[in-house]
């Protein structure tokens, strides 16, 4: 943790003080000089670490044994801190600097910010779990998160409720530990999952769970900091040495976001029905079928499916025709469609409102946000369908019984994207596909490749493939020129930390 009493110029030999603790809030930006090559390596390696954090988060329960073991390994390999120790100073310096470099790359759009914050919060959570109880409390104090502990009498009175609010809280916990009264706005993750006792706007948290408060705080601060950084970014972009690296970094995490339509107009509306059976991932096939059957889709479904269709190459005019002709078969007349629904389709294509050209949803987004409710058909079938219904559906789509059990096993283990990959293999009669599935449009592209598609489509396939490779082996010759970077030049970009933040 950094000590606020020391500010201004920090010389390299004060690193021992600067990096006295293994965990920090990144309140103060780094101010030293750094070789450009180090700048690049640091950034790339942190990005690899964050990508690992992301993948592990999808495949394993966070903080489970496998999760922490693998993350330990990766931190070690990439030379990042993962446990307290005297030899860790260099690693902590790298951690500190690389975090701020990635802030520059990931502050620019809402999507990038969200991704960066999510991974940084998860990384923080993992590292925090290694701190001792005393160190955890220190964190609270250093951040002015001074919450009141409730009296013993109050604890006794609320005992039953406290025990029943959380799986981790027993009668003994109530007796032994202090419980803190925290405004619910500071503990949203606990409120959202109903893992805590809530009364009159306050949650009652045992000492052992205080990490959630800190995480919330970390998330909020990082979010604000990124927004501020974004506004000052032009100063960085004017530095030619940095611009190519930062651009490349921010595209690396997703590889392809299918926002630039490469095949506009190459798909005709008549092809959609057959394509949905052959090349659509299960989520989109399901949406298409629901649309054909009910002549309607609710908002969540229209967004997920509509953007997917945009990604495979439907033009705005085609999209309007497609949705209109289907909706008219249902309860919507042409007039109503033009008034109510056409607007939102144009909005999807960036032709209305603030003209954001929305990007098709990635698997991560489909799995993690906006779960379907009554009347919805969107979401990820491997994540959101009852296993029984999923089984029936796969049977209906003629997947072999052994294949179905393999898929269901993967679903049970929460490996939804792997389950979808298995579905791809089974329906295309291939084994061991080389790509790692993370986007419905990627599924479509790969499927068309396998099925031999048209010549044009095939050519377009090569470009995405290349950038995918690039993102995995980020080359180290992106930064032009050599020499040093004076990081203190850029400190104006990073917001000044307020108060006692480490």
């Amino acid at each position, binding site marked *: 943790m950094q000590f606020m009493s020391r500010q201004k110029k920090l010389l390299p030999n004060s690193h021992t003080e600067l990096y006295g603790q293994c965990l920090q809030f990144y309140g103060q930006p780094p101010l030293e000089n750094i070789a450009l090559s180090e700048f690049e390596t640091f950034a790339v390696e942190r990005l690899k670490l964050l990508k690992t954090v992301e993948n592990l988060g999808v495949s394993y329960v966070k903080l489970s044994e496998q999760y922490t073991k693998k993350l330990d390994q990766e931190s070690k390999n990439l030379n990042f801190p993962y446990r307290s120790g005297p030899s860790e100073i260099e690693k902590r310096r790298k951690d500190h600097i690389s975090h701020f470099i990635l802030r520059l790359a990931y502050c620019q759009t809402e999507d990038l910010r969200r991704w960066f914050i999510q991974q940084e919060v998860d990384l923080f959570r993992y590292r925090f779990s290694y701190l001792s109880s005393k160190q955890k409390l220190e964190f609270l104090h250093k951040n002015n998160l001074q919450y009141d502990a409730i009296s013993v009498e109050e604890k006794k009175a609320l005992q039953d409720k406290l025990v029943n609010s959380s799986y981790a809280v027993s009668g003994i916990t109530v007796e032994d530990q202090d419980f803190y009264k925290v405004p619910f706005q500071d503990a949203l993750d606990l409120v959202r999952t109903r893992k805590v006792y809530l*009364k009159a706007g306050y949650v009652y948290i045992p000492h052992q769970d205080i990490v959630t408060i800190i995480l919330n705080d970390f998330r909020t601060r990082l979010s604000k900091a990124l927004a501020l950084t974004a506004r000052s970014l032009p100063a960085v972009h004017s530095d030619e040495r940095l611009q190519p690296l930062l651009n490349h970094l921010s595209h690396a995490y997703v590889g392809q976001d299918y926002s630039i339509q490469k095949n506009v107009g190459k798909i005709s509306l008549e092809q959609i029905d057959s394509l949905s059976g052959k090349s659509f991932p299960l989520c989109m096939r399901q949406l298409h079928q629901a649309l054909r059957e009910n002549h309607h889709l609710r908002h969540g479904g229209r967004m997920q499916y509509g953007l997917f269709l945009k990604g495979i190459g439907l033009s705005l005019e085609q999209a309007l025709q497609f949705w209109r002709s289907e909706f008219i078969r249902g309860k919507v007349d042409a007039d109503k469609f033009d008034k109510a629904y056409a607007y939102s389709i144009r909005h999807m294509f960036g032709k209305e409102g603030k003209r954001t050209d929305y990007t098709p949803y990635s698997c991560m987004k489909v799995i993690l946000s906006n779960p379907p409710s009554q009347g919805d058909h969107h979401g990820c*079938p491997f994540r959101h369908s009852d296993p029984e219904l999923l089984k029936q559906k796969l049977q209906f789509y003629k997947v072999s019984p052994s294949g179905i059990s393999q898929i269901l096993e993967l679903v049970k283990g929460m490996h939804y994207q792997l389950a979808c990959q298995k579905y791809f293999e089974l329906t295309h009669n291939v084994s061991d596909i080389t790509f790692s599935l993370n986007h419905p449009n990627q599924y479509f592209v790969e499927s068309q490749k396998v099925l031999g598609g048209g010549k044009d489509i095939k050519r377009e396939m090569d470009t995405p493939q290349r950038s995918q490779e690039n993102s995995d082996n980020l080359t180290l010759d992106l930064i032009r020129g050599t020499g040093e970077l004076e990081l203190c030049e850029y400190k104006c970009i990073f917001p000044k930390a307020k108060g006692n933040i480490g």
Partner: protein
Amino acid sequence: MPSSDYDPASLPDLLPLYYRRLFPFSQYYRWLNYGGVQKNYFQNREFSFTLKDDIYVRYQSFTTQNELEKEMQKMNPYKIDIGAIYSHRPNQHNTVKSGTFQALEKELVFDIDMTDYDDVRSCCSAADICCKCWTLMTIAIRILDRALREDFGFQHLLWVYSGRRGVHCWVCDEAARKLSVAARSAVAEYLSLIKGGEETVKKVVLTDPIHPFIRESLAVVERYFPRYALQEQDILGRKESVDKVLSLVPEDILFTVYLWLQSLFLQATAKKGQYFEKEIMLQYCYPRLDVNVSKGVNHLLKSPFSVHPKTGRISVPINLKELDVFDPFAVPTISLICEELDRKKENNTESSGRSLAQKGKMVKTYYYKRTTLAKYVKYFDQFLDAMARSWKGELLRKSDLQKEF
């Protein structure tokens, strides 16, 4: 009943009368101004109007109550929606530098729609409602109102009948208005127990320990369940609905289902931790929220006292003290109250107003008092009075701070 005489085609004639004589503008302004505690709160509020022929206009804003009145009387909107309080006047948003026009605050809102219960009600579907399924709304209101007050500590809740098939809740506390998107979504998820779309059969799964919130909600459901589900909806009355209930019971459980003195009992060789009879009751009765409505700070929601163009009913506030006897079909329609107004005019005794006017005073005649709308406006007044006490405190506090200088 006169209200059933409503004809949508008559709206163009009725709306002008409604907005000139009946719409409670001063109460409406009193509400949205929130005591003037924050500067420009009313001025920066977005309204949207749906006009004749489905013309939709957004980013309407007004500087005074008078301006609002005049505009509404001019445009005669078919529907009115209320949006957020923005950083600048919504009607000037095009002049603001891109990116700086932002939604800052808004009431925390909930929308319960009867269509979301179609898989568990047999009496009606889609936009229809009847007195049998209306109980679902009663249950929803009881559960959510309790949770928002006791668990979250909110005090100023306005429940409103949407005019056709559901209810809305406006949480008007200052803390609620300032909630972030993440906070709103967390509140909505805390309140959500029904998970799953078309592809999910079993939508409620309970595990140990049962959170106090779930216990409290169950207590409400259990109160209404025998009469609602077993009698009115008769879920054990026909084979197909019995089958539906049974589909929610795990296969590996032996059970007996029987009715004993109007209660549902599912006795089973249950392992500890199996709560399927509670899960069934919740799936049939627990409120279904649209999280997306509550999440967005800039989300537009139908305004109280707006007319529902299809049914003609006024979106009136619901007095929770009379919740169990609330009848959506007794809610006045615009044609009814206009008719009542005309009738009273004939037996007119405006002399009281005139005599005061003779004394040179301007007297405002509150015409709505002559109609069935009166009791709803009165209840709205009480709601505003309760809030006003908190505004007073705020204004005092602010002036104290200033005195310190």
